[in-house]
């Protein structure tokens, strides 16, 4: 049995990564067709859209958590910045209906600006302090939204957000313009899927670049990194701003998709869930984070469907199950479901610091010095 699984996993490991990626994209793109032919209900398309939005959030958070090694417990605030910017620019609230692209770009930029502003005072902090400050930031943003009634309608939220027009400026329900209006779940699904695929590719490129290596170096040993010419403050700020921008982008799409946004979508718990997605999937691993987000977002819906549980009940159990799942993961597979190679090494195979100690006492074993096989 063990030999069998080993054989299988060794065969699987030899399949090029690109094949898995292509397969995942094909599966994701094919999913709505099940709805078209009537095999799955439209409700599942909605689950799909939300899962994809959370994939985007998890990809964004992974930049700071996985690559640069900074914890952010208020990440959902950037999602809120994107969503509210979009709601204000494309709803009856101020009677604005900016073109889709302009709205998305401005929403992303506003979230990036928020990232910059919170990054300035906090990036000097480490570990625990950073966690507390980002947590507070998330709550402050949410409470501000609730109290800034004039802009946000407070707890009632903003309703009637217009559907995106991919072209043209006004709502024409005929011809090409109608075709380019995104308003059905399946259309949103493909819109968000394209966005997720594009973001993943851009981030994968970044990971294997000078910038990505600088982030990893800072995470590994900040002192050695700055002594190797990396400007810590700039590199960290870059990762915070970029990750905020991705959340803002996701928030913008979310606002369009849901038509209605209110502060209760941006609770601290949501930040925690995104953190869980990154940890579960595997910090620093793009495929891992994608899987983590889908599992934590879609699986509960599947379970709920299967159990037929009432909504309020279910929310309670959902968090409980999350908690248990994360504890189990941290104990048995701390590197995540589909780990990045750096984190796999870090999290359990060999502890470099322990190794260092052993090495220090063994280094002068004359000629017998050998590199460790990994």
């Amino acid at each position, binding site marked *: 049995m063990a030999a069998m699984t080993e054989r299988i996993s060794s065969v699987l490991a030899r399949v090029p990564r690109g094949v898995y990626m292509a397969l995942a994209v094909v599966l994701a793109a094919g999913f709505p067709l099940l709805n078209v032919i009537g095999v799955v209900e439209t409700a599942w398309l909605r689950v799909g859209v939300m899962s994809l939005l959370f994939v985007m959030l998890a990809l964004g958070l992974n930049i700071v958590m996985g690559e640069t090694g900074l914890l952010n417990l208020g990440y959902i605030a950037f999602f809120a910045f994107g969503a509210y910017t979009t709601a204000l620019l494309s709803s009856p609230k101020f009677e604005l209906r900016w073109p889709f692209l302009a709205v998305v770009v401005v929403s992303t930029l506003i979230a990036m600006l928020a990232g910059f502003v919170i990054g300035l005072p906090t990036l000097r902090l480490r570990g625990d302090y950073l966690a507390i400050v980002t947590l507070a930031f998330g709550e402050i943003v949410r409470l501000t939204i609730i109290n800034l009634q004039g802009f946000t309608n407070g707890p009632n939220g903003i309703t009637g957000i217009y559907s995106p027009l991919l072209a043209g400026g006004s709502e024409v329900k005929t011809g090409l313009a109608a075709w380019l209006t995104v308003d059905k779940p399946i259309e949103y699904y493909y819109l968000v899927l394209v966005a997720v695929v594009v973001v993943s590719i851009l981030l994968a490129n970044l990971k294997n670049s000078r910038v990505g290596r600088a982030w990893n170096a800072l995470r590994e040993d900040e002192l050695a990194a700055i*002594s190797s010419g990396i400007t810590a403050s700039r590199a960290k700020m870059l990762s915070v701003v970029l990750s905020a921008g991705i959340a803002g982008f996701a928030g913008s799409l979310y606002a369009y998709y849901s038509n209605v946004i209110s502060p209760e979508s941006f609770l601290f718990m949501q930040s925690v869930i995104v953190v869980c997605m990154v940890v579960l999937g595997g910090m620093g691993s793009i495929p891992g984070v994608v899987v983590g987000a889908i599992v934590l977002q879609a699986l509960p819906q599947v379970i709920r469907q299967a159990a037929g549980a009432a909504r309020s009940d279910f929310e309670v159990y959902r968090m409980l199950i999350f908690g248990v799942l994360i504890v189990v993961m941290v104990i048995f597979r701390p590197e995540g479901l589909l780990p990045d190679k750096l984190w796999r090494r870090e999290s359990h195979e060999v502890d470099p610091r322990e190794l260092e100690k052993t090495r220090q006492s063994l280094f002068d074993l004359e000629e017998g*010095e050998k590199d460790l096989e990994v």
Partner: protein
Amino acid sequence: MDAILELQGVSMSFGGLKAVDNLSFTINENEIVSIIGPNGSGKTTTFNVISGLYEPDSGEILLKGESVAGLRPDAVHDKGISRTFQSLRLFSNMSVLDNVLVGMHSVTDSGVLASMLRLPKVRREEQAMRERAQEILEMFPGRFSGPRQQQPAFSLSYANRRRLEIARALASDPTLLMLDEPVAGMNPMESHEVMEQIKILRDKGYTIVMIEHDMHVVEGVSDRVIAMDHGVKIAEGTYHEVANDPQVVEAYLGKRAAEATA
């Protein structure tokens, strides 16, 4: 001979302890200078001040006539000073190759947008970086060949990790290379090999200042030797001048021994 590095009256204290006390010296182009001295004499602190990890309390540090005192470490590195650490500081979980590539950070410039889009110029730069990294790793023949480059740095033997730190420091083609005890913990054969490599680096035109306790290595490679004790420079000259200096003998062996040898 042009001065590459010039320290003028540099002092650095920790609380009441003067770790470096009014230190002045010059490193000239293309020479190897060793700094020696008993434990705690301020050698590493001197490196830390030069490389920007500490800001000196007073004094001036000039690299090719331009002040670098008080600059942050990344800025100092940009100016052309790179270093290794006495206690190894590799990016342990990153691959051997990536460690060297990180060392090139300040001599490359692909930005975030260009990297995300993998523009042709980014590809070209990445390609050039990898080729350069190969050249650097090949300076240590047989040590970082083939698949070993993809292994995480922590998996290397102690001696190879020391070599990798040198490789990382060389990656930016520094004006001044500072090595903090490059052969510490190596056996005599390995020390000898590193010593030969340091000489090769000088022949390639590098300027090197090195802290070293291994007197065999110091004697073997140094054009000049500077001896420190209690943060003060107590002697400077050729290896033989410094090794026979009464103050140096005293610093190492104590006063009585110094009198006995005199």
